[in-house]
């Protein structure tokens, strides 16, 4: 029995490598030690993806093909598929049978539940949440999508973008999946026609434009024949992109986590009997956001008690930092009233604490929402009673229309609701943090999980603690008669802010000054805002503690913004060690739709210390200078900077890289 493929297409990958995906299998002749070393020395990361599509779209065949072509199907599984294919009267190996599940599903030929599959290549380990696509199983797709980094939406090339494709796209966007791959399948049945593919891409883009979808990739495939699944297709030379597996192996997911807002929901208190370990008390939990370090000032919500992280413990011992998704135990310097359901956050970056907010709900129970039933919300590690669920409108997933004439919610309904709780919770919007922005609703009588919700970015009611805001809310911005477009036209150039961040001595000012010179000489006004210079005047009243550093950054950001607005390229050279402060500076520009480019001048600490242009490191090491970033105070590296300069090039080369970035963003024209 054979696997369908092109007549000329020899199944190429033997035991080692395929054209694109290097597969974990021991090549002949490799010793056990070599194989072990190869597996352990290059540790892989983990990508979770959800697949959506109905039986007809060829979803099971696609998954079967991915597993088969990447050599993950073992001989006993294959034997089972052979027998089953024969029983069904096929004269080929039906790869979709690799993924069939429970007996009820086999008998009815449908999928009724999320199934999880596993495979690995040398680059990554993969977890597939295989979710059924029919309308009545929105619930399952929401479940599978909740933990996914990436969603594969399957579209039948013959049918184009149908209502189910829209449903899948909508749910992916709702669940905040950062990456979407649209696989246009069955290309073999449309003669591998580029025009058909392009038309589907256009249709999908039209629909997706109304959703929030940061990263969408389109791949034309034939799951049945294997085109562009693991191996590149010979039948579609017009397609320049990578095959699906290559994309899955290389899509960048590290920056999808929130490493800015420190969020630590406490699961439990670890307190051994005093006979074994004297006075040990630690708060166990999994980091839900941000990077935590010993010495950090924190506040415990909802009590509001302030304290400091004394140590971060793991089974292996203390660690110097903890980030998502690490499970650790925190010790605090003070005896505060914290326990399960508390959330530990940074003092200067707090979530909203409120008992009312808006969220999008997916109703998952056959029992409709009823005002007579008592519900509970589980959010992070906290469970509270629901006061009321006020349905604002239901969303028709296919048309995206709102149906405001609804009182209740039924199985598979998606709706926007106002949720009122009996006690406050500490939360972020789901868009900002998938852990602190998600919740489930439990029916108190049946204990069933009846709904899943994502918290929306809206004004909140019943706010107990105001988030940090401007102190002069009533001062209105005075309108200028000059619009940005008119200014730009008259001056012949626009403005922007380039934010150079890095350790003291990394070379920020050197390269920023050189860029300034280059721009001004080319006729583009530019102005260097150097951290040290600003501290002589505008920021002369500020010290170097955490709050003063934040304030230093805030003021500098505002000056840069004004310069950028005026048509100047502001070059900020500032250590700016805290990611949250830099994010605020970026947000300030984003709110005005001004370009803000973060440039990470990434020189190793040893090199900065060796250069030590101001003698700061020498003084810090001698104990004369406390809190120098890199020595006595932390530096939070940018997660996703626009440019990284690694101090392995000359200043001229670095200037060139900055100029290329400016040109690429349309901010200056490069002379050829």
């Amino acid at each position, binding site marked *: 029995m054979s696997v369908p493929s092109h007549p000329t297409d020899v199944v190429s990958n033997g035991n080692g490598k395929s054209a694109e995906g290097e597969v974990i299998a021991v090549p002949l002749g490799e010793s056990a030690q070599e194989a072990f070393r190869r597996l*352990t020395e290059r540790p892989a*990361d983990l990508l979770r993806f959800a697949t959506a599509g109905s039986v007809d779209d060829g979803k099971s065949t696609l998954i079967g093909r991915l597993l088969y072509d990447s050599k993950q199907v073992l001989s006993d599984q294959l034997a089972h598929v052979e027998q089953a294919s024969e029983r069904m009267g096929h004269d080929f190996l039906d790869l979709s049978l690799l993924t*069939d599940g429970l007996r009820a599903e086999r008998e009815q030929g449908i999928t009724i*539940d999320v199934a*999880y599959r596993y495979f690995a290549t040398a680059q990554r380990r993969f977890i597939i949440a295989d979710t059924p696509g029919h309308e009545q199983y929105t619930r399952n797709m929401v479940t599978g999508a909740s*933990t996914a980094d990436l969603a594969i939406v399957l579209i039948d090339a013959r049918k184009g973008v149908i209502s189910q494709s829209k449903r899948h796209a909508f749910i992916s966007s709702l669940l905040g999946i950062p990456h979407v791959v649209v696989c246009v399948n069955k290309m073999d049945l449309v003669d591998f026609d580029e025009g058909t593919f392009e038309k589907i891409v256009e249709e999908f883009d039209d629909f997706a434009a109304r959703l929030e979808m940061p990263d969408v990739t389109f791949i034309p495939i034939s799951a049945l024949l294997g085109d562009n699944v693991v191996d590149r297709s010979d039948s579609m030379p017009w397609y320049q992109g990578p095959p699906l597996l290559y994309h899955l192996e290389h899509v960048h997911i590290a920056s999808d986590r929130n490493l800015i807002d420190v969020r630590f929901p406490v699961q439990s208190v670890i307190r051994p009997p005093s006979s074994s370990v004297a006075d040990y008390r630690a708060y166990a939990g*999994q980091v839900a956001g941000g990077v935590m370090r010993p010495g950090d000032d924190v506040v415990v919500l909802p009590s509001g008690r302030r304290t400091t992280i004394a140590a971060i413990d793991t089974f292996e011992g203390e660690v110097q930092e903890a980030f998502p998704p690490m*499970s650790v135990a925190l010790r605090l310097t003070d005896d505060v009233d914290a326990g399960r359901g508390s959330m530990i956050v940074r003092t200067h970056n707090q979530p909203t604490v409120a008992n009312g907010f808006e969220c999008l709900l997916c109703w998952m129970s056959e029992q409709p929402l009823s005002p007579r039933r008592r519900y509970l919300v589980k959010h992070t590690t906290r469970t509270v009673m629901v006061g009321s669920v006020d349905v604002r409108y239901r969303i028709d997933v296919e048309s995206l229309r709102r149906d405001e004439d609804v009182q209740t919610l039924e199985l598979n309904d998606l709706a926007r609701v106002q949720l009122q709780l009996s006690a406050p919770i500490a939360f972020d919007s789901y868009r900002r943090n998938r852990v602190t922005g998600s919740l489930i609703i439990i029916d108190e009588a049946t204990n069933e999980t009846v709904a899943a919700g994502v918290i929306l970015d809206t004004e909140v009611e019943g706010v107990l603690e105001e988030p940090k805001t401007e102190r002069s809310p009533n001062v209105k911005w005075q309108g200028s008669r000059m619009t940005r477009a008119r200014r730009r036209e008259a001056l012949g150039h626009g403005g922007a802010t380039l934010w150079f961040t890095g350790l003291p001595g990394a070379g920020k000012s050197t390269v920023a000054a050189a860029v300034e010179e280059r721009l001004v000489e080319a006729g583009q006004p530019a102005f260097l805002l150097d951290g040290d210079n600003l501290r002589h005047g505008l920021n002369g009243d500020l010290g170097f503690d955490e709050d003063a550093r934040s304030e230093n950054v805030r003021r500098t950001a505002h000056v840069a913004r004004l310069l950028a607005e005026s048509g100047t390229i502001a070059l900020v050279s500032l250590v700016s060690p805290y990611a949250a402060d830099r994010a605020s500076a970026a947000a300030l520009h984003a709110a005005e739709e001004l370009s803000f480019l973060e440039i990470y001048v990434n020189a190793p600490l040893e090199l900065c210390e060796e250069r030590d242009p101001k003698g700061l490191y020498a003084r810090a090491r001698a104990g004369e200078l406390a809190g120098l970033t890199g020595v006595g105070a932390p530096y939070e590296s940018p997660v996703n900077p626009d440019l990284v300069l690694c101090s392995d090039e000359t200043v001229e080369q670095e200037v060139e890289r900055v100029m290329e970035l400016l040109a690429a963003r349309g901010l200056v024209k490069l002379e050829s």
Partner: protein
Amino acid sequence: MPATYHLTHLRTLESEAIHAMREVVAEFERPVLLFSGGKDSIVLLRLAEKAFRPAPLPFPIMHVDTGHNFPEAIEYRDRRVRELGERLIVASVEDSIREGRVVEQTGPRASRNGLQTVTLLDAIAEHGFDAAFGGARRDEERARAKERILSFRDEFGQWEPQRQRPELWALYNGRIRKGEHARVFPISNWTELDVWQYIAEEDLEVPSIYFAHDREVFERDGMLYAVSPFIELMADEKPYTSTVRYRTVGDMSCTGAVESSAATLAEVVAEIAATEVTERGQTRADDKVTEAAMEDRKRQGYF
């Protein structure tokens, strides 16, 4: 300072498992950890240490002993629990037979594997456990691909696939009624290779039968079984000595050995990475009986 805050896939899986164990201990009243001395439960026990040390484990450890286990696994079990200074409960199938709760099968294909279910459910009821940690993984078998991390069992200990709760994000709903209990599978998302790599990284001791050794075996239904007092030879079955190791640790009566020369953890990892047959397909007769064998046993309340 790392430029990107990166966890390997194993440490990500570890962290998620620790989170799930801590959630269950916080939300249930009387959890228990099922420990057989097999590789998956060895990993589970290490994860429990990671989740709760320096405190004692907040639950006892329980083994359902069929009386047909490998002596090496039993010896290891007792030693490991002693080292940890924790409490071990042994629920014995032998006792269930003596008390007439179950009836022993007879003949050359007799196995106590199915009888464990009654002993397990009786022990859960007797001790009032409301959550039982187990080392099952979704990659083991097709019926398990849809299993939840928290899997609910009704008052008869039965699993109803259609009635399982949706599991979103890492928000586990741990609410149950009196008499019901949950099976908890913190390493659901691990593969066999993950388990071995983790054992190697953590340098965990495992029972010696996981490594190649000489053993008297005979062939039946394409599998190699150990000659033991618990299994009757059929007329045409001829024992011989071979160098074998075990991929799973179950009853001597239904666990097959594989021919192997892997004598170290590194060699085992390499062998698993290159294997062409699944763990259950190669070594577990209990899953071979019918196509839906595992699904049926799960419904009745099996692990």
